[in-house]
């Protein structure tokens, strides 16, 4: 469990990171918190020629509210997000998602940009990018571009990030007033990657009808699953147990999970229903002032 040989360079600015990536060539990798990359290096699952360390790129470490969105720099540590009063106040679903990530020691180092760029099929942050249609800003040799999840996530651990690009910022649209949220998941142990998880955000009007429902599931496909159909079923309706169960059923019919030693395809499929229901119910109860 020793990594193969690689060259190491440290950048101080995004620009420098991009040019170091270019100098290093296609097999270089960015090193952020290292919580996913370093284990893979030590297992020799990945063999980059160069590591470009961005831990000193302090310009990427921030949380700001901007134009009704929460803008977070890619190098912001998971623990910083977890403890941010601003996040808790404006987008508590992000706080709750963060609490599900690994252990404190992991969150102290792991970054939101690293998590989203790594695109683990069971990671929490990609689910929120998908759920809230967040904007992702990416900087490359030709300047900066903005993209959304449907273009960004390609498959298992694969994104449309190009070899010399750096993910710099994530912008989450803030939930509308009258919204409730929940992130629930099933894992074998505390801190494990989820077998199945569901993030839900429901916005209700004063009359108890659902104005908007957003759902994103993890662990049930190559990247987080969003269900326009299930969301449409809920929109404009009273969220009865029956309707919630139908939405869960819908999702369980849509997903195509892979099985592994912990959870079979059938089990994950069934759990996608159970956890969709649990997430929706919890989100709804929070609209109504629940904890």
């Amino acid at each position, binding site marked *: *469990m*020793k*990594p*193969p*040989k690689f060259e190491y360079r440290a950048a101080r600015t995004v620009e420098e990171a991009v040019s170091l990536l270019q100098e290093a060539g296609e097999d270089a990798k960015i090193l952020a918190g290292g919580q996913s990359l370093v*284990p893979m290096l030590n*297992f*020799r699952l990945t063999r980059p020629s160069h590591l470009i360390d961005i831990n000193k790129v302090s310009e990427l470490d921030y949380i700001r509210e901007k134009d009704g969105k929460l803008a977070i720099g890619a190098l912001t540590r998971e623990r910083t997000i977890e403890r941010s009063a601003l996040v808790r106040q404006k987008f508590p679903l992000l706080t709750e998602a963060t609490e599900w990530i690994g252990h404190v020691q992991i969150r102290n180092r792991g970054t939101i940009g690293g998590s989203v760029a790594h695109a683990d099929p069971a990671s929490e942050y990609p689910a929120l990018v998908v759920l809230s249609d967040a904007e992702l800003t990416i900087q490359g040799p030709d300047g900066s571009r903005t993209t959304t999840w449907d273009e960004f996530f390609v498959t298992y651990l694969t994104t449309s990030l190009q070899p010399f690009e750096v993910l710099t910022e994530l912008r989450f649209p803030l939930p509308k007033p009258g919204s409730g949220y929940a992130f629930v998941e*099933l894992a*074998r*142990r*505390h*801190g*494990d*990657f989820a*077998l199945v998880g569901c993030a839900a955000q429901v916005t209700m009007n004063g009359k108890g009808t659902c104005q908007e429902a957003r759902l994103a599931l993890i662990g049930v496909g190559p990247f987080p699953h969003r269900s326009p159909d299930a969301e449409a079923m809920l929109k404009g309706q009273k969220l009865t147990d029956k309707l919630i169960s139908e939405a869960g059923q819908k999702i369980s019919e849509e997903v195509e999970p892979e099985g*592994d*030693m*912990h*959870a*079979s395809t*059938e*089990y994950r499929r*069934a*759990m996608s229903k*159970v956890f969709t229901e649990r997430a929706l119910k919890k989100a709804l109860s929070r609209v109504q002032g629940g904890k």
Partner: protein
Amino acid sequence: MAATTTETAQRWVGRSVKRVEDPRLLTGRGTYVDDLHLANLHQAAILRSPHAHARIRGIDASKAEALPGVVGVVRGKQVAELSEAFPLGVAAPVRYYSCAVGKVLFVGEPVAVVVAKDRYTAEDACDLIEVDYEPLPCVLDPEKAVEDPTAPILHENVGSNVANHRVLHYGDTDKAWAEADLIVKTGRLVFPKYGSTPVEGYAAAAQWDPLNQAYTIWSNFHGPFIMHPVMCRALGVTEDRLRFIVPPDIGGGFGIKSSVYPYMTLMAICARVTGLPVKWIEDRREHLVASSSGTDRVSYLEAAVKKDGTILGVRMKIYDNCGGYIRTPEPACLYRATGNYSGAYLFQNLKMDQYAVMTNKSLTGPNRGYGCQQLYFGLERLVDQVAYDLGMDVAEVRLKNLIPAGAFPYTTPSGGIYDSGDYSKSVRLALDMAKYDELRKRQTAARASGKLYGIGVATAVDPSVTNMAYITVAWTPEERARKGYLPKAGSSETGSVRIDPSGKAFCMVNTTPEGQGHETAVSQIVADELGMAIGDVHVITEFDTFTRTWSITSGSYSSRFASVGASAVATAARRVKEKVLKIAAPMLEVNPQDLDVRDSKVFVKGSPERSVPIRRIAGQAHWSATLLPEGLEPGLQATCMFNFPNAKPPDEKDRVDSSQTYGFIAEVMGVEIDPATGEVRIDKYVTVHDVGTLINPMIVEGQVMGGALHGVAGALYEEMAYDESGQFLAASFMDYLCPTAMEAPPIEIGHVVSPSPFTVLGSKGCGESSTMTAPAVVANAIADALRPLNIAVRELPMTPNKVWKLLQEQKAKGVA
């Protein structure tokens, strides 16, 4: 409150003294194998098989050998030239070497070793070795490996996958079956394969001395030192040409490390081939894939019972899965519990039809509880089935069949001599602590509201300090009676105590602790015997076959410290004390029998003001030896090699007292199951232990909790899982789910104390404890929860997915 190390007044034994080794361990000042530095020390990395079963057509290591920094590549061929196959405890002619020779039989089997200037280079070189494999079909299930004629044979020269088969018959089961009102069956039970993941994996370093043709090996091997002659045979040297050194600290073991010896041999060969000292530190992936694990078992149990719940006899058919090669001490998983096969119960008729089988899984060996978690999982599931079939309560059936308190020492049908105990008292205490009746009421209410709540009960006789004779039950009585056969018998250990010229005590034990707190316990025992403060007692744990007084049963295994280690060191201390009193007697002008020790002084009983410091006695013994009373040797030291008279070879009916002390465990557990997800939550866990005299209650409770969690791990979390093609699926902690503090259920511990009449202090081993019962009690509790749905629990671990699947299947049948 924990006591401090400078008090002397009262007895130390029996108090929760803080562990004297902890400041060192917690501040990173321990000394482990990896802290060893030798001039020109090189590092090894091992290339391992990616196939479960394959022929090796060729190995091309030319690119690896050409890599700068690499000093050598050792292949199976050289291993076969420079060593013999390891001696085995069975007759099957299995040729097991420390590295694959011609064929690989499990994923992770060593195929070649690179020795290089550092580990990075060695691993780089491993990547450059090209091995040409011809994959072969594999078999993973031990029953299939024996019973399915189409199963591939792993060892062509053995001719079958059976490494050992014996039918042991005690009493008369035919008679029991004829007299029974009912025959109760468990069906096919599957006990899983799991290990113990100590913080420190295997570690071995070796050096070859060409002048003396001798090896020195440093390792975290913790015994039994039976492996010293085993390795000498493999390396083709006499015992005086192999020096074993164990450093002061070992980062956990739990039995697993007694199987580090193939790697010690392999490193010895690497040192010889390269002419350099070579070190290898096992990494976590290697540890999970290929070090050692507990034995997975398929078993079928049946009981002959009377309508009133009396068990007349039991029959077991067992297939133990020893992996690719049977490796000493296997097939001991089948035999370690010979004397306590019948557990806590009175029945006299028992038949064991048992196979040790080889399949394409990694190799097995002792794992905390060895042989007992497998045994009690079967036996306790069977007792539950008896209760179910007779409509009785599970606790009631157990109480009905327990060995009564007045029966000790009690000889079991298979030859065990249970030293002491009060089993019903222990079971009743566990039921009381769990508020069993109340728990049953809660269960009824939970069921009425659609919840799945189950209550499990389990008991175990907890054997410690094995008599090495037990392993020879693997041979038939005829084989054991052959001419020239040297019967094996004994469970000895050495303790040495010396008082140095300054009056402080130094003790040596050969129990190579891996974190159990032996230093603390020895300090307590010796401080009591010599009337000192524990801070004045120093315990040296590093071990060296060249400088220590030891014997082949020495080491730390089979929970033997508190029984034999403690007895040896207490006896040695008493001998030193005797001499101290003899030296003091003329000084105080009394007879030695009128004297005693306290506060580091010898005093006259009845007039404590007449005293002489032990320091003065020590001064006399060392500085003024010629003036000692007549007949006394200079110095102040004694060594005791303690053994048990009952540790005899098996008789012609295969009866043997396989262990020398037998504790007792009674457990009650409550679980709640989430019907939507299949998750099992432990709601209540009560465990009552009888370990005889408690030397240090805090350490005992630590062992109990660790053991309980280890057992719960096997029952709910950890599994060395393979896919159908024999690929290993759990090579990191991402998939091998070692429970953490967050998963630990609250554990309530109770004690019943029945001192052993066979040990010096009345103490018994307690290092394995609830590892033996936890899998059974978890399975029984889950089974109880699922009984209303007609779901049987026959395998572990009970993962959420598995429980959910059982619920779904039943739903499909329209039951639930």
